[in-house]
């Protein structure tokens, strides 16, 4: 039986991620773990997260998980969700600036207090709710999910990767921001598939069956 490890580093509610994975991957074992060994041995790794970037990095370091998570991102099917995606970049503006994991060069930026839509109406921060996701490249994880499907978002910061070649998805909120990145065995999204009803479950199902090839 293959194993999906959900990395537990004290950031956010991992139960819903685990329950959603169990729902779609019934022939696999889903474990919520902060054990480096279990993460290392798992066939697939899900790296979720909520909260602030600085706390995220501190909690990872405290549990000595930074390296094992980075290694997993080089080795096996790896799904980053929300904060678990943002900290893959090299730096975040949050908390007056935080150095992150640096898997990809780039900056995580604040949406700003003056975000407006096309009609000049002020946009609320956090960006909270169901927004459309544009597929920017074909990918095994988009299988069965229509272009422009809606997913559930909740965040105030967005990714600005240096290498535009890693962009897998974008979403409009005042401007077109990057809502998905990845390369090779990594797929990482700003939205919450575990809270995005049928399309979210489909994405998790695709991940559970993914061999790590684009």
């Amino acid at each position, binding site marked *: 039986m293959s194993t999906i490890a959900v990395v537990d580093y004290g950031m956010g509610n991992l*139960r819903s991620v685990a329950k959603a994975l169990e729902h779609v991957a019934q022939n696999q074992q889903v474990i919520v773990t902060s054990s480096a060994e279990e993460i290392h041995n798992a066939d697939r790794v899900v790296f979720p997260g909520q909260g602030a970037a600085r706390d995220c990095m501190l909690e990872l370091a405290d549990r000595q998980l930074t390296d094992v998570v980075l290694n997993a991102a080089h080795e096996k099917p790896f799904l980053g969700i929300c904060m678990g995606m943002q900290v893959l970049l090299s730096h975040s503006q949050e908390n007056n600036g935080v150095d992150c994991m640096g898997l990809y060069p780039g900056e995580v930026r604040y949406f700003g207090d003056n975000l407006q839509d096309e009609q000049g109406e002020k*946009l609320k*921060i956090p960006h909270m*709710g*169901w927004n459309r996701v544009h597929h920017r490249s074909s990918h095994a994880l988009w299988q069965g999910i229509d272009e422009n499907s809606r997913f559930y978002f*909740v965040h105030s910061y967005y990714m600005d990767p240096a290498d535009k070649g890693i962009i897998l998805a974008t979403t409009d909120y005042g401007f077109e921001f990057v809502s998905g990145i990845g390369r090779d065995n990594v797929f990482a999204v700003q939205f919450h598939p575990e809270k995005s009803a049928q399309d979210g479950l489909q994405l998790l199902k695709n991940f559970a069956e993914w061999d790590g090839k684009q």
Partner: protein
Amino acid sequence: MPLAKRIIPCLDVRNGRVVKGVQFVDIRDAGDPVEVARRYDQEGADEITFLDITASSDDRDTIVHVVEKVAEEVFIPLTVGGGIRKVDDVRRMLIAGADKVAINTAAVFNPELVKEASERVGSQCIVVAIDAKKVSGEGEPSRWEIFTHGGRKPTGLDAIEWARKMADYGAGEILLTSMDRDGTKTGFDLELTRAICAAVSIPVIASGGVGNLEHLAEGVLEGKADAVLAASIFHFAEYSVHEAKEFMASKGIEVRL
């Protein structure tokens, strides 16, 4: 604007059962929360809110089990409110599977709770529920105050100033209920909704008074709300969530269909 306006069915839960009564009087049983939540999910609800109206704090465990069960099979955001007094209560609900926790009365008596909770678990998890009632007389400029105890006790707090303060303290969202309209089925207090939406830069959920689908659309179009919450029109299948969304779409409102 591609971000959809949200429709949020609300379940009042007492001792583990969904109940519905007009202003907490004449309470009728409306089913098993897990079943009702599953139905709303299938109908396309964008989120589900549970308000625990259990009278005794000894029975609070019941709502935790309800949330756990729902979170195992309903994969949309879940908000839980009612009886939240400490950061530990917030954490307990999040661990059970809630995505957001609504703080109401406790925020009025202890605003620091909102600050502490949002620092500990993140603003995105903290909803401040505001129960407001109009206190200005005929011909005076409109003014609303925060009331507690189901709208019976005035606090002297100005609703607009309070909303701003709660946003400053780290609330990620405001659940705004007009106590004048709650249970009346005469529509949202649109003036109040507009005033609060204009005062804060966080999302606002309008609540209190929905009696038909037109009311939901008004909340967005005239009240400028980011989301609309209703209980009774969905409970007894007067309208399905899907019908509500189709109606809103027909009014030019962006919804997730």
